[in-house]
């Protein structure tokens, strides 16, 4: 059985532009996407910032009305049956907002337990277990304003689990967490799947999707560009090699020149302090390196370390989103 079914789901946002001569601009957030999530599955939606991940989650959690198309969660329509869906799902949106900072962690949880109509005795029993699960035992009487970002994110997880939902929507839950906090949270997510919860996870970290998800949909510019298991996605790039160059002060025009090369598949740039890491996908591997170095040095770009390696899942993702990651 499918926990989530999405058919041709589309969402258009309207923005007003101009002060005196105002006109409305339409932006397509999600563009006719379709997919299913099986009961008890950990499904990942992966994409760069602004790809449509959060918009998709908000429509599935009944917080946004789709412009067209349909979606069901546990068999209930997200527009018509919003009231039936709400007690059965939990969600976390990445970031620190969504909690009452002037209240203690315990008061926050107590309040959300009441909002979700959790029986007081059940809530009383569940609270210490959840605090233990997210590593906040002993801190429950402290005000949230004194919590670190990681602690707030973990409190969100506890809040989301209070009413024992069947389906969980986790929108970039590890965003901004330190590596240890993120690893702990990923373990919490694994435990939830072991308890037969359906988890819908959005992330722009490929390794996170690789480590957690059974299937991953890659979304870009509002459209799903691939949907497969992590292993299946890796097969998208098995014919490619990855050339990584460490450069100093490369101009956008030079990056564009590299993109225009016939032998090059995709080019992505990552800024690392004073330097940039250029990742080039190509079928030609190391044979392409001398030509690239010649072009760079000819344009006065200082090149540091150069490596050629086999592609990973992250490379598959970069290829699918056209180097925008």
């Amino acid at each position, binding site marked *: 059985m499918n926990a989530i079914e999405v058919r041709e789901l589309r969402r258009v*946002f*309207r923005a007003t532009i101009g002060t005196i001569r105002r006109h409305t601009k339409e932006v397509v957030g999600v563009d006719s996407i379709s997919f299913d999530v099986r009961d008890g599955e950990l499904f990942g939606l992966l994409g760069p910032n602004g790809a449509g991940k959060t918009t998709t989650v*908000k429509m599935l*959690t*009944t*917080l*946004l*009305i789709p412009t067209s198309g349909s979606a069901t969660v546990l068999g209930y329509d997200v527009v018509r049956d919003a*009231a039936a869906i*709400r*007690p059965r*799902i939990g*969600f976390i*949106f990445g*970031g620190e*907002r*969504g*909690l*009452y*900072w*002037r*209240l203690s962690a315990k*008061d926050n949880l*107590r*309040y*959300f337990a*009441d*909002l*979700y*109509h959790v029986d*007081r005795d059940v809530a009383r029993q569940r609270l210490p277990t959840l605090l233990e699960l997210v590593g906040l035992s002993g801190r429950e009487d402290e005000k949230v304003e004194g919590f670190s970002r990681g602690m707030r994110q973990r409190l969100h997880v506890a*809040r989301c689990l209070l009413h024992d939902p069947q389906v969980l929507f986790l929108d970039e839950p590890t965003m901004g967490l330190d590596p240890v906090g993120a690893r702990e949270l990923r373990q919490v997510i694994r435990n939830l799947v072991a308890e037969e919860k359906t988890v819908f996870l959005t992330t722009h970290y490929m390794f996170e999707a690789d480590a957690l998800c059974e299937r991953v949909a890659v979304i870009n510019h509002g459209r799903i560009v691939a949907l497969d298991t992590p292993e299946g996605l890796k097969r998208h790039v098995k014919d490619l090699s990855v050339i990584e160059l460490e450069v100093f002060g490369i101009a956008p025009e030079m990056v564009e020149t590299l993109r225009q090369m016939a032998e090059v598949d995709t080019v992505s740039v990552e800024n690392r302090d004073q330097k940039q890491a250029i990742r080039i996908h190509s079928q030609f591997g190391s044979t392409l390196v001398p030509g690239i170095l010649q072009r760079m040095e000819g344009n006065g770009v200082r090149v540091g370390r150069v490596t050629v390696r086999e592609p990973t899942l992250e490379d598959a993702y970069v290829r699918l989103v056209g180097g925008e990651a």
Partner: protein
Amino acid sequence: MIANLRVVLTTFELDVKQQAVDLFMIFGVVIQPLLIAIMAIYMLLERDPSRGIYVVVGSGMTGLWTSLLFRGTFNINAERFMGTLEGIVASPSSLATVVMGKTLASVTLSFLSMIFSYGLASIVFRFPLTIAQPLPFFVSLLVTIPAFISFGLLISPLMAVNLSLSGWVNALEYPMYILGGFLFPILLLPDWSNPLSYVLAPYWAARVLHATSSGSATLSDILLSWGMMLVLSGIYMAASYRLFRIVLHRARVEATLSMM
């Protein structure tokens, strides 16, 4: 039903905790009514000290209205700022239940205005303060609670349905002091403005509280005020129910649940 009542009471409790440390609310509920009371007391000092109770009730009503107006305006929008509105809307509880708990907290805290004004007039200025008809006065106080809550329930979605309306909040504070007859009777106002007062529950609250505290209330006066407050409460509730539906639908269409 019990679950909804629990939401109202927990919201009330936690909102009182948050408001108690909110400097703006402390100003609106404690300091501003005291300033108004001091000003009115000095105006009365030489003329008619026996009208001290009028000052206490009137300045208390100003605190009640200020609190209701500002909290009502920002009840929903503050949740938006904090990012908690989505959590509330996505829960099985209705937003109206949450706003009811918050409004109850504002109204309850606002009664402090009346207590502080009473203390100021009786202890500092040593005015002879007696409530002439204590039983009708305290029953009237109880009747004002649903009247003010329903008015608050009307203000919150009204201000959320159009965000630019909340910019007018300051401009709405003083007209109610006047139209509500908090500090002087509306008989002093031009006749054309009286119908505006009659559709405001705070006017009927002020009228019956002033009359019962000064001893000028007849039974028919009292019953008329109570009846009007209850009828207006019903009208406000019906209008707010419709407004909440519009607010939530529009927010889900326009994607404004999490932004300002």
